[in-house]
């Protein structure tokens, strides 16, 4: 587990290009498989026809396609958020869920689910998610600054905020038990019920984040040698760090508002990408986004198919796959270094 972007390595543009093309192809293939497979078996010509209308239009265009697109966008957003947090906090296991941002978003959503009428939740939940995530991130930066400690302190402040949000969520579940089932599924994270309108919202949101992602990727690319390089280039490491955290929050909020609090993607996708393309930002950013998209797409497909006609929320599939990977990663790390 090499620390993000602190290790100089020969640039490998050809390798990165190959990896990204391969990942992109895999995403497309998996997306097509996801559209073709489901609770209702459809022949290939009916699938194609369904894209343009006809009797299967609902299943293909309004049910499976939106889920696939949402999974790709959210997966990429969560993975990038994880990468940025890992870099900003210089910690290989920082991710939106570990440092409490996802929990803050979840708390905001839960407050909205419980305290607004069912008819409002279409907009009150996204609003709660954004407010919750932003509040945790601002507290994170403010308290981290106040404590004046190093970067690890920041990560643990995030953990503490996440624990507090979790405690309040538990309090809400106990005091307002009527919405527990819905809250649990939402907290687990699922693409169930995604619509074309969701795609539009999320795309606009992510497009707005895109300039920040590109600029940060370019800055990180030059800061390969750490804070000193940034300073010599006239960039304040703290500003870059705040930019990374805030962009991560925006990406997380968008994804969580669409699919709920899916964990582990932000933790694992950057690692897998790093194994494939090495630590340089210009390689890592696209590879991480594609890996995240691929992972959530796969988790969603498995969740839809494995227990027909029931669904297993994609977030749970991600955890069940991601959990063992994390064990493996930690043990491997311990053996390699110990």
């Amino acid at each position: 587990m090499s620390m993000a972007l602190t290790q100089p390595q020969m640039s490998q543009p050809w390798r990165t290009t190959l990896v990204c093309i391969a990942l992109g192809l895999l995403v497309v293939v998996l997306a097509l498989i996801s559209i073709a497979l489901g609770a209702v078996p459809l022949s290939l010509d009916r699938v194609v026809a369904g894209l343009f209308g006809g009797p299967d239009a609902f299943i293909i265009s309004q049910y499976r396609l939106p889920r696939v697109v949402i999974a790709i966008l959210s997966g990429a957003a969560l993975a990038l958020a994880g990468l940025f947090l890992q870099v900003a906090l210089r910690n290989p296991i920082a991710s939106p869920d570990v440092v409490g941002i996802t929990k803050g978003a979840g708390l905001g959503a839960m407050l909205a689910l419980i305290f607004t009428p069912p008819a409002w939740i279409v907009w009150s939940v996204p609003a709660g998610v954004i407010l919750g995530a932003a509040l945790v991130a601002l507290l994170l930066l403010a308290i981290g600054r106040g404590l004046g400690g190093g970067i690890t302190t920041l990560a643990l402040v995030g953990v503490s905020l996440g624990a507090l949000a979790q405690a309040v969520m538990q309090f809400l579940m106990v005091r307002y038990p009527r919405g527990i089932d819905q809250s649990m599924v939402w907290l687990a994270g699922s693409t169930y019920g995604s619509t074309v309108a969701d795609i539009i919202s999320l795309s606009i949101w992510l497009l707005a984040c895109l300039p920040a992602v590109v600029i940060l990727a370019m800055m990180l690319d030059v800061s390969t040698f750490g804070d000193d390089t940034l300073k010599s280039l006239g960039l304040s490491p703290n500003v870059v760090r705040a930019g990374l955290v805030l962009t991560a929050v925006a990406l997380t909020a968008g994804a969580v508002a669409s699919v709920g609090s899916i964990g582990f993607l932000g933790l694992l996708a950057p690692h897998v990408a790093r194994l494939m393309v090495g630590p340089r930002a210009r390689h890592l950013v696209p590879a991480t986004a594609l890996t995240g998209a691929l992972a959530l797409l796969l988790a969603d497909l498995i969740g839809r198919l494995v227990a027909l006609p029931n669904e297993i929320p994609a977030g749970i599939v991600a955890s069940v796959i991601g959990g063992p990977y994390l064990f493996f990663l930690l043990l491997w790390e311990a053996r390699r270094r110990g």
Partner: protein
Amino acid sequence: MSNKDKGAAAFTAAPYQPDTGWSARMHLRPTWLFALILALLFAAAVGNLMVGAAGFSVEQSLRALFLPDTSVETALIWEVRLPRVLLAVLVGANLAVAGVLIQTLTRNPLASPQTFGINGGAALAIVVAVIAVPGLSGGSTVVPAFVGAAVIGMIMWILSLSNAITPLKLALAGIALQLVLAAMVQAVLIANNASADIVYWLAGSVTTAQWSKVWTILPFSLVGIVVAIAGGHHFGLLALDTSTGMSLGQNARRTGGLASALIVILAGSSVAVAGPIGFVGLMVPHIVRTLVGEEQRTVLILSVAAGPLLLVAADLGGKLVAYPAELPVGIITAILGAPAFLPITWRNRNQ
């Protein structure tokens, strides 16, 4: 030093070292402190006995306690409130001692049965076992609890042996592990439509305490705490051996193995009777060390009294805050404990 190491140096903590800073100057006499904590515990316990959903007067409660008869008050005091207080005492002591041991063993100030995922492992194993074997309840849940706690404990123990993983990173690894386990519990619950039924247990609660639960945890508490205190000196040596993790001698390894087993027994049996109650095992050892310093046996003995004090007082708070409804004690400890992360992190910021 390579560039990489230089970059890493900013947040690489040295192995956990006893705190000899400002807190060392204000250490109290352990004996007096012990007496004080016991007095507070007694007061909190009596207060807890006086308060409950049935809401009868202090006088009625005291009469039922000391002059038991056949009244409803007597039945409630002796069969509901007393086992509840005792259960809180035992669970508090278990978690606090487990916290001291795990912080010593891993030389990590952020270690606790909860932050290292041991409570989570026990909870997952219990949830799976209860759903797989519907009749399973009461005392028999300690078996899956031990298995779950042991598996996670083993993983964290192996990780902690690696000298390359710093304490703070190890703590983050544990927290990540805890998140995985929580997600898996959620998965099992959603798949079985059982979320609403089990949310109280999952928050950590002593609301449904009975004598049977007290008898379930008592032997494990007694054995675990007695052995921990008797071996306190040896465990203390583990804390002092900060040179390298891998150079622990044969005896030290054996001691480490024993400490691990104790942690599993203490934490696992707590989860089996009261659910995964968090933050007691993290906060109590820190508070005690701040007050009396580092001597291992002293810390252990004081934690045996301070853990119950925290949990009994928190349970009293949980009874009062939404009276006559009750909040699970685990939610109270979490709301108190989550901010406690901050000062602990602050104290270790320079390592």
